[in-house]
């Protein structure tokens, strides 16, 4: 009987470093291009509401905050497409790279 051609690789795997990492203790990180949690630059925002208009997930509502109307993003609805960032004429929605967004309460996921 011929030996299966993968046997060599299987044998090699026994002595190699595992392909996986132990996640919460060891992290791989995300590349520069990653679309994570938004950064809202409220000083640049004019409150025009364009970002809320285009959002495909209806995740953005405009709310009275302090002395102006500003976008509020519900991250539990957001699909991280960054169409809002594309639509914003003032560059007030900046791409962030934070990925660990799990939370015990939905209120923590409201981004103001």
């Amino acid at each position: 009987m011929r030996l299966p051609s993968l046997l060599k690789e299987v044998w090699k795997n026994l002595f190699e470093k595992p392909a996986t990492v132990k996640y919460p203790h060891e992290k791989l990180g995300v590349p520069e291009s990653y679309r994570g949690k938004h950064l809202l630059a409220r000083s640049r925002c004019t409150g025009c509401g364009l970002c809320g208009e285009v959002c495909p997930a209806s995740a953005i509502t405009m709310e009275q905050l302090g002395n102006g109307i500003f976008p509020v993003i519900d991250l539990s609805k957001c699909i991280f497409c960054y169409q809002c960032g594309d639509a914003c004429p003032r560059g007030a929605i900046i791409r962030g790279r934070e990925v660990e967004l799990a939370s015990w309460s939905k209120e923590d996921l409201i981004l103001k």
Partner: protein
Amino acid sequence: MPSVDINIGPVHPALHEPEKFVFKVDGEVVVDVEPRLGYVHRGIEKAAGEKTFTQAVYLVERVCGICNVAHTLASVQAIERAFEVDVPARAKYLRTIIHELNRLHSHLLLLGVACELMGFDTLFMMLWRDREVVMDLMELATGNRVMSAYNVIGGVRRNISDHEVSTIRKALTSLSEGVKRYRKAFAEDPTIRARCVNVGRLSPFKGISLGAVGPTARGSGINVDVRVKEPYAAFDEIQCTPITYNEGDSWARFMVRIDELHESIRIIDEALNKMPRGPIRVPVAEVAPQTAESFSIVEAPRGELLHHIYVKKGEDRPLRYRIRTPTYANMPALCEMLKGGYIADIPVTLVSIDPCFSCTDRLTLIDIRSHKRKVVRLKSSI
């Protein structure tokens, strides 16, 4: 002896998605199959008509998570055709590259699942380990592992830097070494051959008459590949060779996919070499400039995928959106393959067409007289 009906699904270990099949069996042999589709119908076509064009692209991206790039590509191409927009050359190349990366990931996933179903868990793990290389490249190039949100109307969302080009090249070279080893295993391994060779045969004649598409058709020696027959994106400038096998069994369908991995790696390499510099996106009007009907066909990892839209002048939403997905086209051929086979071979045959039921389930019929809604059985619709 009369045949016995065996229900498999909607929830069953051999199926990865909720779908039901009624197999009429005589002893161990399947004599007839009745698929019952519709468990994951989500009304996406209707919902797409209620979203603006920009939003509809993100919605159809979710028809199927695995081939999301094929869906957005078909969608934006159909909209661009209706709007008569010309996309910059660099964007076309970038679309091609991401489209092929998506195919690599989809094929590696399917081959892994197939190995798992055959009980060959070692190869399953190896294939999925190497699939991570492709997922990392997707993340690097588009900004997300799965939902790329890369194709937008008028171009693509993100450019690829020279540094990223060299990272992609390096990763794909090492992937290609791995694929060579896996090809050898698929071609020669006694376990795989025992489970796949001569299982689920589809003759070229049946394949053509039942309208099989993609790797399912190419495994039966039918030379269909949208990338070659109707070049889109940058495929008019990039050489692409369709892979066909004449055996027509499950083994041939897996071999088509594994050879397509090499072909995709080569296509990405060629596209990276030829890619011109320049803009990646042009601004597009939000409302349709004219009343038009347009469609776009792309070669999704599972076969030919069609997006068909109607737009009305001055409207910012599609009037009607229609999608035809490859698994749906392959269902009649699948029923043909299963007939005459053994019960134990059902999972392998099923997985050999790379079924994706979440894309398939969009067909509902409404009886006009009684206003009753019913999901059509495939048997009654062909």
